[in-house]
C-alpha cells in the first residue's frame, strides 16, 4: 500500500514517518514509535485507554487517522515524566491507590492532564465530566477521583512552549 510522509512532534521530538493512508495514530504511536503506553482497549473510541494529547487536546488515537495530525504536537503518557521525575498527576495516581491493573491508567492520566492544564482547580463534577469517557473496571473510580483532586492541589499549569 502506498505510504505518505508524516511529520509530527511526539513527546517533544520531531518524527518523520512513512505511513499508509489508513494508519491510525494509535498504530503509528504503538507500532512505528514503540510507545506502548498508549493502550488499545476497544478500537471504537469508547474505552478511552488510547487517549493522547494532540496540541493539548485529548483525542482518541484509535479513531484518529495519523495523516490527520500532520504537523501537530502529540503527547503520550511516556511524555509526561521528565528524566525520571513524574508529573504531579502520575505521582498522585501512583501514591493514592488509583492504579490497579494499569490498563486504563495511561488514558486516565492523559485526560486528567488535559483537564488540569485547562482548569487547574476543577470541581468534583468537572473531574467526573472530564473522565466520563474512560472505563476502569478495577477501582470503582473512587481513588482515581482522589488522585486527580490531589494532583490539582499540587498542580501549577506549565507555561506554553513559547516560554511566555
Amino acid at each position, binding site marked *: 500500500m502506498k505510504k505518505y510522509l508524516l511529520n509530527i512532534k511526539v513527546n517533544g521530538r520531531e518524527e518523520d514517518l512513512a505511513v499508509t493512508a489508513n494508519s491510525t495514530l494509535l498504530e503509528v504511536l504503538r507500532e512505528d514509535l514503540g510507545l506502548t503506553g498508549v493502550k488499545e482497549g476497544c478500537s471504537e473510541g469508547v474505552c478511552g485507554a488510547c487517549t493522547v494529547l494532540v496540541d493539548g487536546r485529548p483525542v482518541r488515537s484509535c479513531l484518529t487517522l495519523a495523516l490527520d495530525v500532520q504537523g501537530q504536537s502529540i503527547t503520550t503518557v511516556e511524555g509526561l515524566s521528565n528524566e525520571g521525575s513524574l508529573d504531579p498527576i502520575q505521582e498522585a495516581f*501512583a501514591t493514592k*491507590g488509583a492504579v490497579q491493573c494499569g*490498563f486504563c491508567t495511561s488514558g486516565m492520566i492523559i485526560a486528567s492532564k488535559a483537564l488540569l492544564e485547562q482548569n487547574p482547580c476543577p470541581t468534583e463534577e468537572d473531574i467526573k465530566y472530564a473522565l*466520563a469517557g474512560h472505563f476502569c473496571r478495577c477501582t*470503582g*473510580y473512587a481513588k482515581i477521583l482522589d488522585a486527580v483532586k490531589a494532583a490539582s492541589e499540587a498542580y501549577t499549569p506549565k507555561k506554553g512552549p513559547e516560554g511566555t
Partner: protein
Amino acid sequence: MPEENYSIIGKSIPRVDSRAKVTGEAIFTADIVLPKMLTAKILRSPHPHARILHIDASKARALRGVYAVVTGRDTVGEKWGVFRYTRDQQLLCVDKVRYVGDEVAAVAAVDEETAIEALSLINVDYEELPAVFDCWSGISPGAPLIHDGYERNINVAVKIDVGNVEEAFKKCVLVREDTFVAEEDSYFMTEPYAVVANSHADGSVEVWMPNASPHTKAKALSNALRIPLSKVNVRKITIGGAFGGRSDVFPAEFITCLLSLRAQRPVKLVYTREENSIATRMGHAMITTIKTGVDRDGKVLARDIVCYLDGGAYSSTGPIATSVPFLCHEQTYRMENVRFHGYRIYTNKPVRGMIRIHGRSFACGIDTQLDMIGAELGIDPVTMRLRNARCPGETTPTGSFVASCGLVECIEKSAEKSGFTDKFAQRIPYRGIGIGINSVQTGFPLGIRGGSQAFIKFHEDGGATIVSGVVDNGQGNDHMLVQIAAEELGLPVEEIRLISADTEVTPTDAGSYSMISTFAGGNAVKRAAADARAQLLEIASEMLEADPEDLVARDKKVFVKGAPDRGIPIPKIVRQALLQGKPIMGRGSFSPDVDQRREWISNPRGQLSQAFSFGATVAEVVVDPETGIVRAEQVTCAQDCGFALNPMVVEGQFEGGVAMGGQGGMLGEEHRWHRGHVLNPTMLEYKMPIMKDMPRIVPLIVETIDPGGPYGAKEAGMSVAMSAAQAYANAVGHALGIYFNHFPLTPERILEAIEKKPSGLRTVWDFPAARIIEKPDKEAK
C-alpha cells in the same frame, strides 16, 4: 493488637508496580514485540450449532505472507476440561461447532491485513443443526443434544442435602417459594485477551498471556500440544484485569502455540473487544427457585433451592460454577436443614465461567426473599440478617469449620454507619435503602496445585529477591508479596525485588482464581522470609554476641531488642554470611488445611477452604419513576478481610467491587441475544458504570485476625462485590415497594415493574419454577 509492632504491614503504602504503570512502561501481552514475529487471526463459526463437513484451506496456505494455517485436523483432537470428567472442548473444532464464535481455523501471517485476507480464503462446509439458547429449551425432552451422552443437555448436576428439609418445613410458621432470574453478565476487563507464543529449536515454547495461574496454563498446553511440561514456559506479564475471566484455558493460547510451532517463529494473537467477550468466558444466566421456611422470629429452619445455570457450549469450570453460589450462601447463613440441586445446562452460546459476582439470581434471590419474609413477620432487614448470620466457631452445612468470622460486625457497622434502620422505616417515595450480606472462600481443594512455595535470596548490598509462583491480575498481589517480605526481613519495600508467575523459574502456586493468593502465596513468602531472617539473625548473633532470640531485623539493620542504635547493617551480615560459606537462602511453603477428599459433585462435604471472608453492604438509591433510572447516592460496605495488609489496596478492592457488583452488576450489565448471537459484545453497547455513575462509597474494613492467614489476612473485596449486588437490588425494591425477581434492574425492567406493581408480598414476574430434574439412571458426569 499485634499489628502495632509492624513497621510495613498494615500501612497504606503505594504499590510497587504503580510507577511502571503511570509512566506507560509496564508491558502487557499485546505490547510485546519479538524479531520475526507474525500476527495470528482466528476463523470462527458463524453458526450456533453445526457439523463441520469439510474445510479447504489450500488458498489461504498459498497466499503470499502466510506462514501457517491450522484447523482441527492439525491437532490431536485432545479435549480440554478443568476436570478429568469435564473434558469436552476441542481447542480447535474437529467435528462440530457449538456456538457462534467457536474456533474453526487460524492463520499466522506477516501482518494483520494478510491474516484477515487469508481467513477469507478458507472454505468451510457446514451442516447446520438445530440449536438451543436457554435452559428451558435445553432440558426439554427431545431437545437437540449439544454433546453426546449428556441427556437433556445436563452438563453438571450437583446435589447437596443436609438435615431433613421436609420435616423442618413442617415446623415453620411461614414458608414461601419464589423464583429469581438473572441474565448473562461479562467481565469487560480493560485489556482484551492476547497471547504471544515463541517456539524454539529445542522444541520448547514460551508463552505470554493474561492468566490467573501460569502453572495451570502450562499444564494444559503441555497436554494439548503433547510436549513435556518442562518445555512449556509461561512467562510473567502485566495483566489488565481478570475478575474470574482469565481463570480457564482457552483455545487462543493453544492455537497461538500451534501456529508458532508450525511457523517456527514468534506469533502474536490479540483479540478484538468482541472476541474477548465471546471467545473467552462470560457469566452464567441463572434461574433460581428458593423455598424458605422460618420460625416466628424469622430464623430460617429450612431451605430448598433448585438452580439452573445456562452454561453455554462447554464445561469450563462447570462443577465449581454450579456449586459456588450455594456454598457462598451456606457460609453466610446458618441453616440446619438445607437442600440444593444445581444443574448446569449446555446451550449453543459462548462458554460461561465464574465472575466476580457469580450467581446474581441466587444471592439476590436469597436476600430479596429474606426481606419479604421479614415484611410479613414485621421484622426489619437488619434484624432478619443478624438472626441468621454465620458466627465464628460454627461449621457450615457441608462441613467447613469457620475459624474467623466478622459477619455480625459487618452487618452492625454498615447498618449503623448508614443509619439503616431509621432510613428503612421512613418510606420516602422513590428513595430506598437495602442491605445484602455474603461470604466468599479463600481457596478450594486444588490437589497438587493447592498450595504455594517461595524462595528468598539476598544480594551483596543487602537487598533481597523473592521467587514466587503467585500471579498478579491487577489486584496488587505483587505488592502484597513484597510488603510481606519487607516486613519480615526488616528491609524497605524498594529493596525487595520480585520474580513471579514464570513457570520455568517460580515454584507451583494455586493461582489467583480461588481468592487464595494472599492466604497461600502470602503465607509461603512470609515463611520463606522468616527462614531467611532466621539465617540472618544466626550470623548476626555471632557478630553482636547475642542470642538470636533477642535480635530484631528492622530498618535494614539487625539489633538487640530495645537497642536499635547499636545495630549492624544488613548488607554487612549478608557479606559475613558469604564469607563464612553460609549464604542466606530462605524457603517457605504453605498448603491450606482443606479436605482434599472433597469433590464438587461426588463428595461435596468436608473443609472447603481454610478461611472465609464475610461482607455486608448497604446501598441508598433514588429511582426516577418516569425513566426507570436509578441513582445510587451512597454505598456503605463492610468486609471482614481478616487483617488489612494494606488498607488503601483493600479499600480499592471494595470500591471496585461496588462498581462491578452493585452499580454495574445490578443496574445495567447484561448481554442481549438473537439466536445465539450476542447483540452487545462491545463496550459501546454493554453498559458498564463510568465515573459519573458512581455513588459515594464508604468502605469499612473489619478485622478478625484469622488464625491461618498471614498476619491474620484473608480474601479482600469479593464479599463486597457480591453483597453490593444484593444491597442494590433490595434498595431499588425498597424505593418502589416492589420485590424484584429479574436482574439486572435495567430502566426497562423497572418501568415494567412499576406498571405491573403486584399487590401484597409478591415478586413482580411469575417465572416458571426451576424443579429437580429426574433423569434416567445415571448422574451426568
